[in-house]
Every structure is written in C-alpha cells, then in structure tokens.
C-alpha cells in the first residue's frame, strides 16, 4: 500500500508578493539589494552575520562571536559553519566548528579559530577581525555529532583546534548525560584552547581530562591509549585533529576491528599541492583529460569535445569564465596560482588558465 503525502501548495507570503511588486521598480536589481543598504543581516540577499566580539583564547587562537542574520536555522553541537570573510578584498570561505550552545537567548553563535602558520584566513580572523564586521554565513553542517541516544561512555581524542567541536558538545551538557574522557594534545599547557574551562569541568568531576603537552612529552602514540584509557575500545569515540593523528587513530581502531565505534572529523578534506599540469575533469560533460602546464584549460576541454564557453581567447573578455569546483590553476600570463575547494565559489578564465594539479571544472 502506498501512502500519499498531501502536497500543500507553496504559500506565497505577503512579503513575497510585496517583494515581487517592488521588483518592478527596482529591476534589474532586487528590492533586497536596496534593503541591503540599511539592514544587511535581514535583507534576504544572503545569509550573513555580524561580528559582535573577538575574544583571545590562547596566543594564537580566538573565539569569534557572531550575530547571525535572518534565515539562520541553528546548529547541532559538533557541527561546523562555513564563514565567508573578505581578506585583502577577496572573499575566502573556511569552515569552523561552532563552540556555542544551540538556542542561546540572544541567538548568537561562536566559533573558535586557531591561527595556522601562513593561514590567510585564520590569521585574519584571530588578529585583525574587528567587531561590527559583516561576514557571510552558510547553514551549519557536518555529521560529527552525537547520536540521538547519548552513549553511556564517550572518548574524545583531539589535538590543537580539534577540541573545538568537542567543546560545543560539552557545553551543551554532554558530561551530565555520559561518562566522558577527553585526551587532548597541544604544544604546551598555555596552548590548550579552553584550557581553564576544561580543567574546571575536570575538577568538578564532570569529565576525565588527559592533557598531552607535546613540546615536553612528545606526540601521542595511539598505542599509549591502552594505558591512558584502558576501556577506550569500549567507548564511542570521536577524534578530531591533524591528518596524521586521524590516520593513526583510524588505523588503530580498524586493526582492533571496532572502527564502527569511531567518528572522525577532517577540517581540510583535501590538501591541494599545486604542480605543473594535471587531470582536468568536466563532471557534467563526463569528460576527463590530462592537460600539461602550458595548455589553457579552454583548449584542453575543447580538444576533448567539451562545449566550452569562450570569447577572445586572450584573457580580456571574461566570456570563458566557469567555476573551478576544486583544484589549482596557474595564470599563463604571470604564473599566479589560484586554488579552490568546494564551496569557495572560485571562477576562472579558462583561456588563460592552465591546470596546476587535479582540477574539477563545473561543466
């Protein structure tokens, strides 16, 4: 037997009607573009937030408190949010774990950012971001979250800023519902993000905290967990930190045959290391070609029969601009590199860009 879900006609709200009417006076712009002048958070142009405060956590980490605008749908502890920030005039998107408790009275959220060496965005956020700045937001996402039924015993293995999603869960009251152990690595005691708050929780008996200060004690060897947390394989485990640590943890849990009890979070799923030439994929066209570092992607695509938009073929008309979903390209005119990961919204001129690594073009 099939059941049919009654499909209600989409209700056209009064606001929508009003906007459509207003659109006849604002065309080719939208009424929202004008609302944007006075209410950037509520104009409906895009989901945005206003930075309310930037609070230092350690010498290289800070918590950014954001007032999200209209349309923010909230988050689940452990999820991350993508932030779009203009650095040197260029919009850059990065994902950060939400560290605030869901549904706070003032509706504010916070993310905690650790400045990584040469990190364009993280350094900007930690050291130069000022309250009042408008940032672009995306809805919270990610499945590094607790299941609906909270497990009785929980282990977190984290390092560096990997503690941030865990803090989100702890602040949401996880420690009241479960037996929690947190094994956290940081270079020194002072570098432990949320160090004071975690130690306070531990002192109150809410969780067991194992701090590893790697400058003095060296990196954590996963095998040490046998002694540090004897029942670790019986615990539902969440790990978040640098790639090396995650791989070690995954290998260890797999070798013990309990990989289904392990959940990991990678902040940077792909590391793009630019080179000369590479494999170019045009996913929608279903074409993959090898292109060398001197061939414009436009030529490579056309030679493979992809219907490429094109124009002057010399970099001046912008008629060939297409999204680079993921990968790296080099500007053939001056050697400048452009890299992109999904969600960055990077568009490139294919007529003057050559592959500098694996490229995924949205065509």
């Amino acid at each position, binding site marked *: 037997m099939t059941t049919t879900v009654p499909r209600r006609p989409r209700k056209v709200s009064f606001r929508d009607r009003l906007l459509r009417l207003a659109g*006849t*006076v*604002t*065309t*080719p*712009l939208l009424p929202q*573009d*004008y609302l944007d*002048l006075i209410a950037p958070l509520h104009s409906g*142009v*895009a989901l945005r937030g206003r930075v309310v405060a930037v609070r230092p956590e350690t010498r290289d980490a800070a918590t950014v408190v954001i007032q999200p605008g209209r349309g923010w749908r909230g988050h689940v502890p452990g999820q991350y949010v993508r932030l779009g920030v*203009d650095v*040197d*005039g*260029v*919009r*850059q998107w990065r994902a950060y774990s939400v560290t605030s408790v869901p549904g706070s009275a003032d509706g504010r959220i916070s993310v905690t950012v650790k400045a990584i060496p040469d990190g364009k965005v993280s350094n900007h956020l930690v050291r130069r971001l000022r309250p009042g700045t408008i940032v672009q937001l995306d809805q919270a996402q990610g499945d590094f979250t607790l299941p609906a039924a909270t497990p009785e015993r929980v282990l977190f293995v984290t390092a560096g800023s990997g503690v941030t999603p865990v803090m989100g869960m702890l602040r949401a009251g996880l420690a009241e519902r479960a037996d929690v152990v947190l094994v956290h690595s940081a270079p020194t005691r002072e570098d432990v993000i949320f160090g004071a708050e975690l130690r306070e929780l531990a002192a109150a008996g809410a969780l067991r905290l194992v701090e590893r200060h790697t400058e003095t004690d060296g990196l954590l060897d996963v095998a040490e967990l046998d002694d540090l947390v004897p029942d670790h394989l019986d615990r539902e485990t969440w790990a978040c930190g640098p790639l090396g640590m995650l791989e070690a943890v995954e290998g260890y849990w797999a070798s013990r045959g309990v990989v289904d009890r392990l959940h990991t979070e990678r902040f940077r799923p792909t590391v793009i290391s630019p080179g000369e030439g590479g494999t170019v994929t045009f996913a929608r066209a279903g074409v993959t070609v090898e292109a060398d570092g001197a061939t414009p992607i436009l030529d490579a695509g056309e030679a493979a029969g992809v219907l490429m938009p094109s*124009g*002057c073929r*010399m*970099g*001046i*008309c*912008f*008629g060939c*601009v297409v999204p680079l979903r993921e990968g790296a390209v080099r500007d053939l*005119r*001056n050697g*400048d590199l452009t890299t992109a990961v999904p969600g*960055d*919204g*990077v*568009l490139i*001129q294919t007529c003057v860009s050559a592959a500098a690594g694996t490229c995924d073009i949205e065509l």
Partner: protein
Amino acid sequence: MTVIQKKADNPIAHLSAADIEIIGKELDAIRDRVLADRGERDARYIRKVIKTQRTLEISSRAVLLFSLFPPAWVVGTAGLAVAKILDNMEIGHNILHGQWDWMRDPKIHSTTWDWDHVSPAEQWKHSHNELHHRFTNVVGKDNDLGYGIMRVDEDQPWHPMYLGQPLYNLVNAAFFEYGIAAYDLELGHNLKQGRHKDPEFRARARAVGRKIRRQVLKDYVVHPLLSGPSFLTTLAATFTANLIRNLWSHSVIMCGHFPSGVETFEKTSIEGETKGEWYLRQMLGSANISGSRLLHIMTGNLSYQIEHHLFPDLPSNRYQEIAPQVRALFDRYGLKYTTGPLPKQVASAWWKVIRLSLPNRRSKAAEPLAPAPLVSTTTA
C-alpha cells in the same frame, strides 16, 4: 583618419619589432604591479560607488513621487540621471568587464551583474568585451567604428546613405541604449541576411524584448503610477533622465575612438599579431578625456580610454593611478597620447561624423597597391 598602414607618415615607422615587444613587456609590468597591490582599498571603492548609486537612485525616485512640484522635478530628475549614468558607466560597464571578479563576491561579478539598460548583459559582453576590445579599430572587424550605421574612417567605403549620418548620430545619441541593444543584437545585419527566423537570433531578440519590457514598465508605468497625481510629470522626469544618460554616455563613448589623432588598422594587419602589437594597437586606437575627478567617475573612467583598452580587466579606480606611467611610456617611444577636454573631443568626433558623410576628396596620392604589415620588418 586613414588606416595606419596607408599613411604617408606612419607614426610607428620608427619602432622596430623588438621595440614593440619591449613596450609590451613594460605594459605587462605595469599590470603586474597593480595586481600585486590590488586589494581591500579597491574593494571598498567599488562598494562605496554602488552604495552611493543605490542611495541616489532610490532617493531621487522618492523625490519624484512629488514631481508635480517643479523643484522636486528638477532635483529628482537630475539625481536619477546621475544615478543612471553611474549605473551604466562606472558600475555596470566595469563590472561586466570582469574588473571586480577577483573579489569573488557573487553579487559583484561579471557573470551575475545586470544593469539599468535595455541591452541584456550577456549580449553586451559579447559584442563589447569580445569583439570591440579584441579588434579595436580594425576596419571591417570592429563594428564600434561607426556602429555599422556611420562612416567614421576614410577607408570605409562611402555610400549615399552616409549623407544622413549626422542625423543618425543625433538620433542614436538620444536613444543610445536602444542603439546599443540593436547593435549587440546585430539587428541590421541579421535582418538583411534573412536570419529573423533563426532560433538563436530569435532567442536573443526575445531576451532584449524582455529587458525592454521590464525597463519600460519600471520607468514609464510603475514609477509614474506610484506618483499618483504626479503621473505625467514623473513620466516626463524618467524620460528626461534616460535622455540625459543616453546623450552623456554617447558623447563619452564617441570620445574613445573617434576624435582626430586616433589610428585605425587594416584587417590583414592583425594576422599573427603579437602581444606587443596588440598593445600598440590599443595605445594608438584610443583617446582619453582630460578633466576633474568627478568627470572621470561620471565617464566610468572611460576618460582613461587608453589605459582601459590596454588593461580592460583592471579595476577602473586604478586607471588614473597608472596613467602617468603609461603616458611616460608613450613619450619614451615617441608615440602620440591622444587626450583633450570633453568639449574639444566631442566636437572633434562630431566633426568627423559630419566630414565623412561626404565622400573622400580625390586629392590624395594613389594608394599603395598592397597593404603593408603593421610593422615593417626592414627598419627605415
């Protein structure tokens, strides 16, 4: 003017092929210096211009709701005209060139922007960015040379039809946005070729139709209706604002390539053209307008037409900054940097339209049999 290759005193005869490539390298270096420094200051500039334009437009339209009162009519019309000019020139033209694509702001991007103009952005980008900027001043290839309705170069063959071109130019100036839409659609050419049934042409024509409908509905129906008792006066105001915008942009654009001193080029001369030669063609094929900062903004910095044609994708606020370096390069290589105040350049362009409505005088020496290449390989 006559195509450069046929001139008795070829203004680039003194340059060797190597010189031209060095000029190209120097221009590349100017471009790279701007790119290295492009950033937050530029982003702030364009956002400020956009904000100013929107504030001006909406407040002018609000004032025009009371256009029955003459002072409101004058203030509102003037404000709306300026807002429309800013929208088309400093904002629309330059964003559609991709000058601000580097900001990665999806709201200010050549692929998403649309303007207060009856020509759809897509079609304009093709005819302007791709054809005009690539084939600048190449007779027979660059349709901007007379827009296909006028003769603005001695080397374009004369036809009795051109006797009326001062009148065509005046009408085109008054309804310039429609002229551009027809031009981007290659209306005359397509109709002559009997392509009115071609599905691609029809799709593009429909897009223009949609754009015209929306623009007309806004300016001549909805806004006047909102003005209630001021219906007729608001109608007159929006018409006047559009007229001012059209006359202004037509004048500015005429100054870019028509004034005396600007060179044109033969079709064959661009075969196998090098980057240096392309740059040289842009240098000699464009003319600037001198004036105040306000004039530069109101022309969308097309008053720096030379710099714009050399680097069509650099942010417009940078043109006046690099102009002294570009001009110094012209001087060093003995090239003519054509510039002058607006009235002089407009008069010069108009004089050419009037003069060339008549056939060439027969006093000139016989033309060379074969067209010479842009650069002679043997140095004089």
